[in-house]
């Protein structure tokens, strides 16, 4: 008897599968690094607004932790759900290769948004990055220089030792400092890693101050790092002698900018990443955009976007600088 009821239930389940497939809009899912990460709220907002105007279906999912393999079950589940587009901020540059290949074999468009599979680009169709990441390093060095009068000892407080984006930027910073005569009086004395944890970033920052008493500036190209560094400077009351800048979220940095601890920092618009990704995905599936290197297409509010080498697209040319004058204009 029980068995029969069960079978009936299962049959209903199967019936639901078949009906769900009728005349669907394009289904896009974005898989974030982890839940509770304020950065992704803004990207999600871009996706949602774009899908509202384009008529696609959008969902955001994310694992509880940002560990390398935690996104795999979510990708498997989205393949099973039969979505048309999987956009993902990958937690690992290579642990997802196999499962993303499966998705591509099923005809799903795989995009990396806000982070790429560095060295494994063949396992996704295209990537959407906020800026040309070669610009980040020089931009940050210039901002730091303008704060300290292009003179003195500086240090870098980064995320993890292997964070691919951060390492690209740090390499570019080193390069800029070495080769551009404008920065010849700025000396990079140390690069330390706070692992994107507030506690560890704080102790690393304290150690920097105590190991290098002549330090005049710290660049933290990571949202956790810059907040931790700013907090150390704020609590020691040394904002006049040690200048902190880097990449931060306006929502997390607003207080530090207002009380003068940090005079300026940079980032880009995460919202536009979602906005661009959704437009690109819908265009590619609808056939109006060709996913080829060198191709161009227009996106409302963003202008003409060019598909660059390795199928990479950027939402803006230069980083946005936030300071006391404009920080209240941003709500992410």
């Amino acid at each position, binding site marked *: 008897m029980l068995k029969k009821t069960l079978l009936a239930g*299962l049959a209903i*389940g199967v019936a639901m599968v078949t009906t769900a497939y009728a005349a669907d809009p394009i289904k896009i899912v974005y898989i974030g690094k982890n*839940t509770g990460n304020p950065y992704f709220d803004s990207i999600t907002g871009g996706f949602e607004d774009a899908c509202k105007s384009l008529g696609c279906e959008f969902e955001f999912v994310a694992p509880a*932790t940002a*560990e*390398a393999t935690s996104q795999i*079950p979510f990708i498997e589940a989205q393949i099973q*759900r039969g979505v048309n587009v999987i956009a993902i901020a990958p937690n690992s540059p*290579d642990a997802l290769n196999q499962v993303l290949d499966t998705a591509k074999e099923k005809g799903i468009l795989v995009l990396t948004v806000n982070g790429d599979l560095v060295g494994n680009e063949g396992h996704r169709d295209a990537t959407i990055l906020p800026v040309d990441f070669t610009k980040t390093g020089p931009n940050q060095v210039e901002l730091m220089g303008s704060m300290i009068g292009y003179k003195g000892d500086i240090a870098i407080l980064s995320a993890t030792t292997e964070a691919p984006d951060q390492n690209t930027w740090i390499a570019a910073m080193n390069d800029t400092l070495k080769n551009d005569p404008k920065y010849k009086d700025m000396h990079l004395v140390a690069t330390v890693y706070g692992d994107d944890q507030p506690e560890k970033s704080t102790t690393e920052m304290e150690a920097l101050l105590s190991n290098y008493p002549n330090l005049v500036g710290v660049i933290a190209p990571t949202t956790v790092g810059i907040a931790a560094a700013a907090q150390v400077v704020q609590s020691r009351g040394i904002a006049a002698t040690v200048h902190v800048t880097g990449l931060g979220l306006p929502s997390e940095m607003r207080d530090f900018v207002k009380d003068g601890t940090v005079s300026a920092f940079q980032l880009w618009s995460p919202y536009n990443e979602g906005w661009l990704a959704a437009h690109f995905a819908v265009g590619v599936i609808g056939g109006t955009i060709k996913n080829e290197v060198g191709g161009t297409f227009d996106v409302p509010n963003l202008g003409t976007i060019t598909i660059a080498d390795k199928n990479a697209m950027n939402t803006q040319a230069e980083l946005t600088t936030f300071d006391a004058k404009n920080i209240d204009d941003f709500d992410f």
Partner: protein
Amino acid sequence: MSAIQTPAARELPPARPRWQVIVIRPETMTLVLLILALFGASLLSPYFLDVGYILRSFTLSAEFAIVALVLTMVIIAGEIDLSPAANMALSACLFAFAQQAGVPMPLAIAIGLFAGLVMGAINGFMVIRLQIPSIIVTIGTLTLYRGLAQVIAGDKSIRVPDWFIGINTVLIAGIPLTVLIFIVMSVILGVVLSMTIFGRQIYQIGTNEVAARHAGIRSQRIKMSLFLLMGLVSAVAGLMTASRLGSVRYDLGLGGELQMVLMAMLGGTYIFGGRGTILGTFLAAWLLVIVSTGMTVANVLPAVQLVVLGVLLIVSIIATNFIYSRTQR
């Protein structure tokens, strides 16, 4: 009430009907939950009920499930091991590191497996020789092993050779190889535990170690062999994970100890030792996979999944305790 009942109960020694003996067991509870979960997941998402998908999802937890089988035996013997997930990471890192440094593959695999054995031996030594409670020893070694993995690999991921990748995609009669290994291991360990002298001795040690020793059971030797087996199987599971992912990082299997303990507990293994079966853990592994897969494919917030897992753990142990306290009388 009780005054009237007590003498009656004393007169009649409870002659338990046979169906009760079979039905009132923790494994039955697991089975019922399993069926309910299948039913619930099918209602929750129309995409769930697909054997291929369920099997594929099982491969994501198969490594943990295999270790959980051995963990079940360790818990029955009255000990616990919280370090296997860290062991998986360290063995896999050592293996990957060695093969990257140019060590021939068979030797690299041997290094990984040997490392697992050594880690099991360290746990066993501290628990059995030094008489430190296993729960605290393995919390310490859990931190140490994963820490060492991090020292070796940093937070780089190390690639493994292409031919080594994809053990989970090898299908035998439509069943992924890792799932098949789990099933075979369940049968072997199930037979060992329930039908051999060695297996019965594990139960006796867990029920009353002092009595077992007086009865001539070499409890220390048996427990040591369980810890060694635990270490070896964890290393195997670590290599299987490396093959599935195609790369190794120090955070491989992070938090896996919780899933393993959960599988054993959900399967009705008694946390204080002496009771539990491989069948229970086998069913519980499927239950866990179905619950989490069902929720993931229905896009249920991972937060809700955490709550459900937490509640399942507590409910299962309350039920297990209740069943055992009833059947003991």
